[in-house]
């Protein structure tokens, strides 16, 4: 309990800074227009919060019948069968978490490298248009990514990437099974491409914020270019990179259409990236429109609620990591 009571003010302070030492502006000092403006902004902020809460409440209410029926089994069983009325979401949770994490693993190093190149190495005439193009990737609708994934990426993976992987790394469980193109691997690649522009853009902002003097100091001490990037740029911006990663992860967890079109839509738990899978978002896209029974609708709502919880949990966890790293960095 003591640990918890120690954490509550810590967390609260981070969610609502200044809550412990809130200062009130005295009424008489504020003019009338300011006050209308202030309350207007306050009302919109609270309205957004209320909107979020009402959404959570509605999804939770819709998912109650499923939670009553299955209880904890809903999260730890893997049987999604609308014919028998058995619903368990384990494979969906697995598919969501694994595809998102793998996409992060693929996208973050590339994004950081791209951001470094554009900011520090590339000449101006190259970095501007190139940066613009990469940011344009974020503007492509996800259904277009899905179609591209289905008609271009999946056949490419099936013909050129998966066979050599199976030949040389087929002894590991990660790359076993017949190469079919669509499946976990296609979903991971699509997700990585989709979250890359976000991570790159934020990393560029973070790198740009580093004072020029830091870099000059590193070079002045005799660091090579790579050592300068390592010491002056990367080391002092890792919280920013982490923050970018969290945003990317948030997008990957909830991505629906593109994943639905390439993941193979078979709720399996398999170590192989060749195998097909199913995510929480994709089963919603697949089954919500044609759900027959109220129990199936409720189970799908429960999946939506779980997706919300998982995103919240991962986001919260990542945020805590940022705080810890941040405070260590400050003190150290």
């Amino acid at each position, binding site marked *: 309990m003591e640990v918890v009571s120690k954490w509550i003010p810590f967390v609260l302070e981070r969610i609502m800074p200044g809550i412990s030492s809130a200062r009130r502006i005295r009424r008489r000092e504020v003019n009338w227009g300011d006050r209308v403006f202030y309350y207007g902004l306050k009302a919109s902020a609270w309205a957004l919060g209320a909107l979020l809460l009402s959404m959570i409440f509605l999804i939770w209410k819709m998912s109650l019948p499923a939670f009553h029926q299955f209880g904890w089994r809903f999260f730890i069983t893997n*049987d*999604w*069968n*609308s*014919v*028998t009325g058995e619903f368990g979401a384990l494979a969906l949770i697995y598919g969501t978490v694994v595809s998102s994490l793998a996409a992060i693993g693929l996208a973050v190093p590339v994004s950081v490298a791209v951001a470094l190149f554009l900011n520090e190495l590339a000449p101006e005439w190259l970095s501007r248009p190139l940066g613009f193009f990469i940011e344009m990737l974020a503007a492509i609708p996800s259904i277009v990514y899905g179609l591209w994934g*289905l*008609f271009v990426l*999946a*056949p490419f993976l*099936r013909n050129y990437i998966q066979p050599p992987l199976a030949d040389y790394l087929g002894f590991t469980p990660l790359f076993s099974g*017949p190469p*079919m*193109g*669509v*499946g976990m691997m296609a979903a991971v690649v699509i997700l990585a491409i989709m979250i890359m522009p976000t991570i790159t853009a934020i990393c560029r902002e973070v790198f740009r914020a580093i004072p020029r003097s830091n870099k000059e100091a590193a070079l002045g001490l005799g660091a090579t270019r790579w050592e300068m990037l390592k010491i002056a740029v990367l080391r002092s911006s890792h919280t920013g990179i982490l923050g970018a990663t969290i945003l990317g992860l948030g997008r990957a967890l909830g991505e629906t259409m593109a994943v*639905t*079109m390439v993941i*193979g*839509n*078979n709720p399996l738990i398999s170590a192989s990236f060749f195998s*097909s899978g*199913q995510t929480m978002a994709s089963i919603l*896209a*697949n*089954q919500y*429109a*044609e*759900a*027959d029974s109220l129990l199936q609708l409720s189970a799908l709502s429960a999946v939506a609620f779980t997706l919300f919880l998982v995103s919240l949990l991962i986001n919260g966890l990542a945020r805590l990591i940022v705080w810890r790293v941040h405070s260590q960095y400050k003190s150290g």
Partner: protein
Amino acid sequence: MSVISIRSKFSIVCAGVIVGFLSLSSFAAETVLINGAGATFPYPLYAKWFSSYREVDKSVEFNYQSIGSGGGIRQFLAGTTDFGASDAPMKDDELAQSKVPILHIPATLGAVAVTFNLPGVKDSLNLTPEVLAKIFMGEIKKWDDEEILKLNPKVAMPKNQYIIVCYRSDGSGTTAVFTEYLEKVSPDWKKRIGSGKSVKWPAGLGGKGNEGVSSLVKQNPGSIGYVEMNYAFENKFPVFAIKNAKGEFVLPSVKSVTKAAEASLKVLPEDFRVSITEAAGSDVYPISAYTYLLIYQKMESHKGKKIVEFLRWAMGKGQTMAASLNYAPLPNQLVKRVLSKIDSIALEGGSDKKEGHKLN
């Protein structure tokens, strides 16, 4: 050009636009908007019907959302649409949820084609329902399996080629028809998997929509998948001839689907809710199905009259448009029965006066 003349021109254009809007809105007041939602499978035909019907009655406008049969039934039961559309007939407990009796009006007929991608095999192959069920259950794993070879002795099957089963991952009336057929012909399927708009597939890959399954089949040598007949034809996919109840191997076509409807006329119940998969009779394609419009038996007369008029048109002129889009027209005998069912729709409410007022 002087400033004044530009201004006056501008005001003339403005006035014109305003007058245009006013006349448009007064016109809009006379049109009847009929909302519908449901099945995706007959959507190409419905879209053609709705646009062609503008020539018959300009005052009627249709708004049809092809959101799928399940969604269509839900919206219709909730009363948010004027009519629904479904590939599979509504179940008794669904019908019981409605305060007003609901009519099933057969609109047209379609079929589920089983298609494949085998390098070197361009022509159609023969398949029995038992082998089909075994393939989709994952029991027959390779194309050169003894049971497949036996049915196609003249075809050079690729050696050691794995079968990749492709199915609809989204809930779908097509899946409902296909699994209902397999349930009928294979006790094993009935016990292990059952039927529905989405079932738990024991093997294979899921694609979203007909186009998802089509592209999976197109990309993967060794694959087998089921799509609406129309999709197989348009993609020029090879299809299986399926052995019907009489023991003949029949290819899907408008003709063989019509045969299935004709063969089922004798057993067609009063409310038209029927499954015509595995229908008896010769030249019958066994995986055929009706698709229905769902209509309230009692309607407010102003809108109801327009809906009834449209339904009568759909049974006449509308049926002649089906074949060109690879749907099978209803048999003549059935059209007569459907028309008398349409006559039983009760129109009520005193909005006739309102209608007269609007016309003045």
